[in-house]
Every structure is written in C-alpha cells, then in structure tokens.
C-alpha cells in the first residue's frame, strides 16, 4: 500500500515537471496580481446619504407647503367661481350704480332744502369727529383766522 502511494507521488512529480506543465506555471505566474476594489460601494453610500437628507428636508417643510398649496387651489377656485372676468370686482348687479345715483339725488335735494343751513352730510362730517378725522397740522392747513 505504502509502495503504491510512493509510486503515485513520483508520477505526479514527474507529470508536474513535464515541459507543458512548466510552461503553464510560468504563464500563470506572469499574470499581474489584482486586488479587489470597494470604491463603487463607497460612492453608493454617499448617494444614499444625500437622498435620505433631501427626503428628510422635504418631510420637514411638508407641513408648510402642503397647506399653502391647498389654500392656493381653494383661492383659485373661489376666484373662478365668484369673480367674473371683465367686471373688475364689481357686484355686477347694479347696486353700486344705483347707490351713486341715490347719493347724488339725496345730496342735491338736501342742499336745495337746507340752502345756507346744514345738510345731513355736513352734520355727519362735523360730528363724526369729536376727534379730528385728519391729524391736520399747521403746515397742512396753512392759515388761521
């Protein structure tokens, strides 16, 4: 048994010392030695960290911009529903125009009846302000009697 084992070893050595084997060994030894690089993994980590930070920022400001956007949408809807383009904020039902005509008629009638006396508008203007509606100063008014 021991003899057989010695025979196998000798045969193996002989085969390894064959010129073909030697040629292969030399070729393998001549190959450049390469080390394993983990740079790609490092880059991936950096990218993951940046993405996570951006997401955290977005989550932080979400409570501001989400209601703001909601309000903006609601406002736009209200404008679209209640303000008619081309009317520029007018009630559009003639109330303002009727109000102007009534104001004209009432003040004209009041002046005609009061003559040199006091009209309701004058009475209102003068008693509205036990305090002055305007903070006149001497420069404003120019003169005194």
């Amino acid at each position: 048994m021991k003899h057989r084992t010695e025979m196998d070893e000798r045969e193996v050595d002989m085969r390894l010392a064959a010129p073909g084997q030697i040629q292969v060994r030399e070729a393998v030894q001549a190959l450049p030695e390469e080390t394993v690089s983990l740079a790609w993994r490092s880059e991936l980590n950096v990218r993951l960290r940046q993405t996570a930070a951006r997401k955290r920022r977005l989550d932080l400001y979400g409570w501001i911009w989400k209601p703001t956007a909601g309000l903006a949408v609601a406002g736009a809807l209200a404008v679209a529903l209640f303000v008619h383009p081309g009317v520029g904020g007018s009630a559009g039902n003639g109330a303002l125009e009727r109000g102007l005509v009534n104001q004209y008629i009432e003040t004209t009638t009041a002046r005609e009846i009061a003559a040199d006396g006091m009209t309701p508008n004058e009475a209102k203007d003068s008693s509205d302000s036990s305090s002055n509606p305007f903070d006149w100063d001497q420069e404003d008014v120019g003169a005194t009697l």
Partner: protein
Amino acid sequence: MRLLLLVAAMIAASSPLHSQAQFRPRKLIQQRRQIRQNHPWRIAPQLPPALKKALGAVGTIRYQGTRVIETRNGLNRQQHTEYVLNDGMRSRIEFPEDSPLHGQIIIETASERLHYIPGRNVIERGPPVVDEAYARLAQRAANGNVVVTEVPGGAVANVPTELVTLTNKQGETLQKLWIEPGSGMILKRELYTRGGVLSASFEFTQVNLNPRIDPTDWNLPRGARIVTPEIKLVELIRRGGFADVRLPADSPYKLEAARVQKIADRQVLVQQYAGNGRRVVLYQTKAAVDPGQFVNLPNGVRTFAWRSGASSFVLMGDIAENEIQELGHRMGG
C-alpha cells in the same frame, strides 16, 4: 353876528355828515340791486306774485328765526333745528343747546361759507351755497312743463302766507312753498319725489322780520385753523390711495366738499362741485362701474363714466350732455 357865524359853522361842519347820510341808503339800494342782478337766475314774468317776490328778495331780506329741517335718507327721515339770522347776502346759523350740533356756527357771505367746528377748532371754508337753492327753484318754476299756482296758505310761525305749488303735467306735486307775501320770505318749503313722496322740507317755527343785527354777529372765534375743501381732498387722495383726478380749475364748478363714503359696500371718493345753480359730483372707486346701468335717471341727471388704471370714475350732474362729456374727456375719460 356871532350867532350867525356859529350857525353857519355848524351847518358847514354837519354838511358832509348830512350828505353822507343821504348818500348811504342810495348806495345800499344800488348794492342790493347789483346783488340781485348778479344772481344766476331769471325771474320768469308769468310766475305768481308771491314767488316773484320771494325770488326777488334773495340778497336783501332781513330776518331772524328758528327753522326745522327734515331730510330723507332711504326710508329714514331725520330732523334738526337751526337758529338763523339773515341780513341780505349774509347769514349766521347756530344750533340749540340740546342738539348734537350745538357749538357749531355757519357764517355765509356773498363770497364764502365758513363752518366753525369747535371740537376740532377748525373753520371749514368753502364757496357760498345759498344761491343754488333759489337758482334751482327759479329754473324749475320757469320750466314750461311745470304748472305754478298760488292760493292763500294759512299761517306759518304765526305769519299769514301764500301757498305756491309746483306740479308737473301729470298733476303730481313737485314742491310747495309757503311765502309771506309782504317780504317774500319763504317760511316753509316741501320737496317731493317723482312718485309724490315728501323727500325734504323746512319750516320756520318762529320768525322776526325786523331783527336787530349787530356787526359782531358776523364774528367767529379767532385762532381756529382754516381748512378748505381742496386741502381735504388732497389729504383724502393721499390717505386713500386714490388717483389725483378732479374737475378742471377753469370749469364754472367750484369744489364744495370732499369725503370718502361707503356706497354699496364700496369705498368711494366723492367730490361735490356746484356753480350756476347746477351740481356736479365726481365719484372715484376701485370697483368697476357699468355705464349701461345709468338709464332713466331722474331730474335731467346725466353721467359720464370711464376707467383709468385701477380706478373707475363717474361724473354725474344736472348739466347738458355735451358739457358733461367735455368735462369727462378733459379729465382723461
């Protein structure tokens, strides 16, 4: 001889006074006639005698009295009482002690109207306004479409009157006047709307047609600050962010008052002008105004509306169509 010299000296000394005393009433009559002629109205010859007398007496009549004025704002009627002293073109108005207006004084002359407001120690100075009331009356009475009648009117303030009534062709009463026929003083007046509703009135509850008037009756407290409608307008424009648009200075209409008023829930700058017995009002607001809404306006009222920048303007007045348009164009309309 000495006695004769003394008498001659006395006559010589007194002659300038004598001639002056004779000249004064004539000068006064001339002045009053001139004032009458300067009124911006014509007294139509077909008018009843009491109304002719009333229109002719403006600027010469003297009286002192207590007058109750009532005006209507929507369906709300409001009253106030005034004490009035009048001497020709001058008048002084005060208010009873129980009135919220007590302490205020209005003095009007041929050239200005002074309104003293004690709470602010201010005198608001504007153009006189009394002529407008009589000019409108004269214009309306002279209108061919108006029927004017005169009948005895009973007593007002214990004074006998003539009642002058103006009606339109449909028989609707436009206004009534109770006139003291001797002096031409209008003791009571009522104005009605087109539908026959009483819109405004005044009535004297006491009157003295021969008052004693002292020169100091035309005085106002000294030291009060003078505020004109122009000063007020500039301040309102500045504070309210309104556009500085106003009637041209060479127009016959003078600024009488400026105020910011809420009309149909809108802030409106109101500029009131008057002249030649006409009234022109310029309205300015940020809201849009539809000129198509100004139709079938009463009492010959005309409008001219335009929009400039962020503001709407409406010029309104009882003046001719071409005149209101010209004024509007000159202001940028």
